[in-house]
């Protein structure tokens, strides 16, 4: 057999070796391009990798979520604590702000009034709800005496019933034992304001012919030496005239709500005028 005689079998093997070598060399020279025959494998690989990646991210996510939840729980507890503490602080601050406003109002009232006033704090209320009295933190050592008038910037509160060394009992104007000399501001008709129930008073000893209607303001007359003249007591909400009586029943709501009192003033010299501002 001569050298040039073709052996097809050997030729095909030789061609295949050359082809694969060329392909391999080609792959070596452009590594960025995946050969076509690797594409299906690459596809499979990426699918599996993706699946693992999803799974691992899922697992990681679950673990992370679990650890986050623990953290969140901790944080939540901490935030709740902080929130409660801030709420408490806010409540205290609001309370302080309100107290500040109230005291400011009282101070302004004290400053513009020419009466000699002594500020006092309400420290107690009556033991028996059928009686209307409060206890204040001023007593005989502060110069408090029985029957001195007690007011706030809005109107009359009552008067001193009992005095101890450091405290005093104030009989509120809504107590059935209290009596304050008063006049109807509009018509100047005179009567006595007595306590009736815990939120109403009665204007007694008014004559039948006296002019008083619903909405009239009842003010102090100044004759009882406890309150200055013209200080508000209450407003009339019911007038009852019986057919044959010589007098009339006049009911009023006190200007001051005795259930919300926190600070009051005791009038040490009631014969002064109510406000300097009015004089100007």
């Amino acid at each position, binding site marked *: 057999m001569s050298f040039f005689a073709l052996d097809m079998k050997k030729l095909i093997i030789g061609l295949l070796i050359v082809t694969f070598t060329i392909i391999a060399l080609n792959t070596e020279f452009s590594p960025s391009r995946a050969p076509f025959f690797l594409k299906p494998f690459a596809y499979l690989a990426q699918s599996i990798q993706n699946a693992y990646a999803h799974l691992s991210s899922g697992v990681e996510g679950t673990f992370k979520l679990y650890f986050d939840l623990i953290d969140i729980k901790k944080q939540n507890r901490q935030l709740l604590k902080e929130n409660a503490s801030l709420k408490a602080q806010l409540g205290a601050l609001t309370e302080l702000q309100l107290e500040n406003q109230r005291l400011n109002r009282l101070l302004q009232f004290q400053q513009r009034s020419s009466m000699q006033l002594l500020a006092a704090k309400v420290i*107690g209320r*009556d033991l028996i709800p*059928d*009686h209307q009295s409060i*206890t204040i933190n001023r007593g005989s050592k502060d110069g408090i005496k029985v029957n001195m008038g007690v007011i706030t910037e809005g109107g009359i509160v009552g008067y001193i019933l009992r005095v101890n060394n450091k405290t005093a009992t104030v*009989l509120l104007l809504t107590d059935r034992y209290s009596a304050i000399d008063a006049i109807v501001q509009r018509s100047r008709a005179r009567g006595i304001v007595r306590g009736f129930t815990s939120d109403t008073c009665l204007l007694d000893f008014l004559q039948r012919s006296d002019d008083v209607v619903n909405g009239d303001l009842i003010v102090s007359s100044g004759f009882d030496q406890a309150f200055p003249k013209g200080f508000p007591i209450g407003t009339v909400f019911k007038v009852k005239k019986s057919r044959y009586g010589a007098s009339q029943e006049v009911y009023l709501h006190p200007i001051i709500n005795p259930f919300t009192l926190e600070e009051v003033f005791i009038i040490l010299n009631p014969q002064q005028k109510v406000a300097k501002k009015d004089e100007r």
Partner: protein
Amino acid sequence: MNAKTLSLAFLNYALFALLILVFTGFQTSLWMYVMGYFPSPQFWLSILVFWSIYRSPKESLIMAYLISLLVAPFSAIPLKTLLMVHFCLFFLIFFIRHRIYWEGVTFMMFLTFWICLAFPFIHFLMSFILEPSPLHKIEFFDWTLRAILTTLLTPPLFYLYVFIDRMTKKRWPTEARSQAL
């Protein structure tokens, strides 16, 4: 009665007197700060009930006087009215106790509730008889709430009173002595 028994009896009275002052102060001052004008439990009535159940009539009467004197400064109520109301309550408790009696805290709860409810009615009546300016109405809802609150607080109070009695070796009358707890 020897000196030790006498001093223990005195201590018993003193501790209950102190308790009345502490409770009444709490009720009129601290309760107001915390709860505003929401009805408060009537502690002094529970002490009156306890003494009327577990003491001789003579001692209960002394306590009725003592309670009246101790709580009068906390209210604008005239002393004569308060004394008469307490005496009426004392007689009412004795009247009930001689007819119905069972041992333990539940009897005191039962009596406390009814005595708290009876208080405003007897007060209304006494005010009508004794005072120039009597009560116009009874705050029934308010007093019912007070009665419920006082009754609910009776068990701990009862054990406190029993503790004081044990500490001061106070002997109870025969019908009330056995098995208070």
